[in-house]
């Protein structure tokens, strides 16, 4: 019996190295973490938002212009660039990777707006990944002739659903249904409007793309005309430069979704631009 035990023990000890070597390392790759899904590059088409977010702690400064003279006026007004202009400046700040706020001001009625944006859903499906977000905003028209600054009719509110998808990292499509309360601050009664904003962006290279934006009013009141814009976007290290041709001279969301003041067409195209810069303190 002792002899058998010796044989088993000896074989066990001597065979162990061979068995261990055959097994190789015990190490197993830990589960890979993935960055937040990003589809569009910028946080904006032209005036509509994309579902892209700043990263926690990042800020974005925006300055936008819409030149009021039409392109058709030609050299006399340098295709509109001599001005005057509607302009907007804004600063966004990301509270988290999925929540951010923005404070902006436009010179039309000295409107100040506060926006809150949230990235709600990201679906990493193969061909058509989807990002969905929501944005809510409040706008205060702080200078309306004949009214006090704080008149309740000077305030507008809006909510937006943002749906984005990008095919093959080249073709992006966005849908932005928007509800706007108090669409026309000059109307006797407060009126609502529903728009179904959409945009398509096509990237010709890593940093150059073409974009169109279409904002039809689908129910409620509208200023005069639906908004149509087209142009290009150039992306640099931390900047986006967007040059746009549009029939809508407004920039703040509450004013844009109220409608354009001229028909989309050769007689009424205006030039505009948006420059954004990412900042980190």
């Amino acid at each position, binding site marked *: 019996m002792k002899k058998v035990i010796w044989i088993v023990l*000896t074989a066990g000890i001597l065979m162990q190295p061979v068995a261990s070597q055959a097994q190789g*390392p*015990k*190490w197993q*790759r830990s589960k890979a973490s993935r*960055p937040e899904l990003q589809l569009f590059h910028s946080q904006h088409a032209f005036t509509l938002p994309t579902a892209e977010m700043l990263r926690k702690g990042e800020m974005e400064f925006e300055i936008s212009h819409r030149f009021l003279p039409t392109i058709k006026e030609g050299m006399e007004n340098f295709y509109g660039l001599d001005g005057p202009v509607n302009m907007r400046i804004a600063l966004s700040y990301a509270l988290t990777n999925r929540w951010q706020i923005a404070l902006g001001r436009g010179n039309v009625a000295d409107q100040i707006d506060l926006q809150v944006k949230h990235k709600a859903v990201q679906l990493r499906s193969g061909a058509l990944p989807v990002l969905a977000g929501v944005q809510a905003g409040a706008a205060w028209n702080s200078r309306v002739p004949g009214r006090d600054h704080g008149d309740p009719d000077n305030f507008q509110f809006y909510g937006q659903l943002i749906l984005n998808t990008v095919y093959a*990292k080249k073709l992006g499509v966005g849908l932005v249904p928007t509800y706007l309360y108090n669409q026309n601050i000059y109307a006797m009664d407060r009126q609502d409007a529903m728009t179904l904003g959409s945009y398509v962006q096509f990237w010709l290279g890593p940093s150059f793309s073409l974009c169109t934006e279409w904002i039809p009013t689908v129910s409620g009141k509208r200023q005069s005309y639906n908004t149509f814009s087209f142009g290009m976007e150039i992306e640099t290290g931390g900047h986006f430069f967007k040059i746009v041709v549009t029939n809508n001279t407004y920039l703040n969301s509450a004013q844009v979704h109220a409608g354009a003041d001229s028909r989309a067409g050769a007689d009424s195209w205006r030039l505009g631009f948006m420059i954004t810069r990412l900042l980190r303190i």
Partner: protein
Amino acid sequence: MIRIPVSLIAAALALLAENGIAAEFQVDQTASNRVGFTSQTTLDNFAGETNRIDGYILFAGSDSLAASEIHLEVELDQLDTGISLRNRHMRENSLETDKYPLAVFHGKATAVRQDAPDHYLVTATGTLTLHGQEKELNVTAAVQVSGRQARIETEFSVRLADYNIRVPKVMFLKVNEIIPVKVDFTIVQVNP
């Protein structure tokens, strides 16, 4: 009671050594690991880093370096330069992390020199796979041993063209052609 002769134990240990049974160390995921790079040009200076390094080291002693094995992986998706847009450009346009998510070093130790109590200089040679390209890489690492753990620090340079990595041509974003890389991580022994 069964008594095991000393000669039998000695024979077994000798065989263990002959077969090169190595201690296995794995990257301690709970430690403050860091893989970082810097780029300094006249227009722009920036650094990137990640703590997502993983892998193992098999080490059978200074006399059995041929049996050693080093395998380290870095998740490139997680490299952070401090600006999300720049991260995205780096991932999508330069490193193409969808196709090549990992940087992998696989090699072995070729020399070990003790320069202080519990402190060693280890030379390793192997292959660095990055952006789908493989290149031989020789590095010297400082290893500070503490019980069953060791802290490893090393530096080397990566020439982007060697790995077919496109240097960004985006306006205002300039990157060095040769990128210094620093690696600093802790390993812990996992087998007896």
